[in-house]
């Protein structure tokens, strides 16, 4: 048994109803765990790209890739090497603002993390933050004592660096 680690799998699929269900169902049925999944249409409007992060050992990941490939609506699957891949995640975070001190703290954090405040009210702000997952985790830790009301995270999306691309 090799060591468990997090893998990022880039997957091109037919952009049509039911495909996300098929993929998610395969993971459930085979007992693989999805850490995160993000889906969006690609430069070709009939293709969608799923970025799936999975924890497991090498053998498990090999099976994940093969089982994904087996689905008729999955066109291309590739494991992205973390050393040569750019990953990003976005989060919207609604933070409680108790007083002016809290407000100025938040503004400072947002500045340091190069994120944005995109909504503000008398007792709350919404922060938009983009980066790798660790950066978002760090921001959340920092904001925790102020009182976090809601978090919406997109999950990781990723592309490999340089000219190479996952193509059908």
């Amino acid at each position, binding site marked *: 048994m090799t060591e468990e680690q997090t893998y990022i799998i880039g997957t091109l*699929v*037919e952009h049509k109803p*039911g495909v996300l*269900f*098929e993929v998610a*169902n*395969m993971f459930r*049925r085979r007992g693989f765990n999805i850490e995160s999944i993000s889906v969006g249409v690609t430069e070709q409007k009939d293709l969608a790209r799923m970025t799936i992060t999975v924890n497991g050992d090498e*053998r498990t990941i*090999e*099976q994940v890739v*093969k*089982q994904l*490939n*087996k*689905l*008729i*609506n*999955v*066109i*291309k699957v590739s494991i992205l090497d973390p050393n040569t891949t750019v990953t990003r995640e976005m989060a919207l975070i609604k933070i409680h603002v108790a007083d002016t001190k809290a407000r100025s703290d938040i503004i400072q954090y947002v500045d340091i993390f190069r994120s944005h405040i995109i909504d503000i009210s008398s007792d709350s702000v919404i922060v938009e933050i983009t980066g790798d997952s660790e950066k978002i985790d760090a921001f959340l830790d920092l904001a925790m004592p102020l009182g976090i009301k809601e978090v919406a995270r997109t999950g990781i999306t990723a592309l490999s660096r340089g000219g190479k691309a996952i193509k*059908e």
Partner: protein
Amino acid sequence: MTRMSGSQALVESLKREKVKEIFGIPGGQILPLYDVIYDCGIRHILAHHEQCAAHMADGYARAKGSPGVCFATSGPGATNLVTGIATAYMDSSPVIAFTGQVSRVMIGKDAFQEADIVGITTPITKYNVQIQQASEIPVSVKMAFHIASTGRPGPVLVDLPRDVQIESDQMDFAASYDLRGYKPNIEPHPIQVKRAVEFLLQAERPIMLVGGGAIISNASQEVLRLAEFMLMPIGTTLMGKGIIPETHPLSIGMVGMHGKAEANKLIPESDVLLAVGMRFSDRTTCRLDQFCPDAKIIHIDVDSAEIGKNAKVDLPIVADARKTLTQILEQIVQKMAKREKSTWFDRVHTLKTQFQNNKSNGQGIKPYEIADELRRILSSNAIVTTEVGQNQMWAAQHYDALEPRTYITSGGLGTMGFGFPAALGAKVAKPDVPVVDIAGDGSFIMTEQDLATSFLEKIPVIVVILNNSMLGMVAQWQRFFYNRRYSASELKNVPDFVKLAEAYHVNGVRVGSVGEFSKALREALKSDVTTVIDVPISPDENVLPMVPAGMGLKDMMIVGE
């Protein structure tokens, strides 16, 4: 381009796929299609339970080697297909199911007889789709047949909303499609073939272990030629039975939990295991680390996901079995002379001799005697189907299959009630060949209502019930591992199968000796209606050898030990 309704387009598409027979049951949401079926020229066989319609299509497909088609209405009709579809999926059988569905506007409203059959069957089909517009039908049917029957075959479900069946549109039967996510790899990689040859040339104790994939690939000749050239014994999985005549000197029979004693002894002794179209299922390998601990494993399978799924292999070849074996043999022939004798072959011969009489010594008619009689009387091309449980394992151990596609059984899912409808389907596929369902009483009860189909549609088969009045395999486990506490496993001689047969206007006969059985079988073979032969056997009869759960092949229990 021709203008017609969705139903007409579907039937036209089926004709273009050369479909001659359909198994099904009509219902509300598939009525428009059945109205076209009424006088379309394709034979429709009315099943008496949708599960049976699916098993019939499956038996048909396995006997014939081309897709079997079944129809069911929406909701409960469709969900009744599920067991049949799951059975076909586990055994890689090209069953194509068409289901009625509520009209498009009603979908999602929990309409009467609405079920999300596409969602339900996603994990048990190779592909499924709900048709959104009638004009999609010609291409969708083409895709369904292509996907079901190529690569590793498997069931496909096409869901047809009622209004799509009615909708009239321009139909393009010449339209092509591009399945960019489906390109099965058929050709073996030359480097892998070369390495396989090297493994085999160095082997002193090679064994070929052949599964259902080799039968699907029509690789019988290639399996036999390679084995004979190298004097390599051939074991099979349950699904591989019939790939070569089991009477052949190199055949060591089925391997696994209820495998033949010689096969289970030999596999762990091998130094190279050539696995062809099989998937290292738990029933075949038992404890995996003791299966063939000293062997290098060469694994040929057309489905890359089977490589490394269960067993770690030393040399994977993702390709068609027949093509791969042909290429391996071509190179072997150039590198060695035909082997005429070997100490390994002597060992095979010794073990086969040692265990040839290792059979039950219980009371009354013994299951192996029935299997022997069947083999003695039936032609080599006769088709045997089985139910699931003790009957299936006795048949696997004692009935020598001689040709591919003549031993049809639910291997992966282990579906009780499969054998009888599968026999009906096989008989429709091969009307000139005798078809016998080796059944148990418990299994046969699960689909016996399709005796009506057999009678009404004039599909004569023979059902041989090895009747121990028990859920026999359950009882065997209770006997061995649960202190003879027969919890819910006694069937108490209900029903009377002779009277049951009579109620369906088919022949029913009970036999009290092997001689009476032979006579009844010969009569049945001459009859143009189905015959149910009830063969009472001892409820204490066990299936042996048996490898207890969690143990290795070597730890098998055998008769007299």
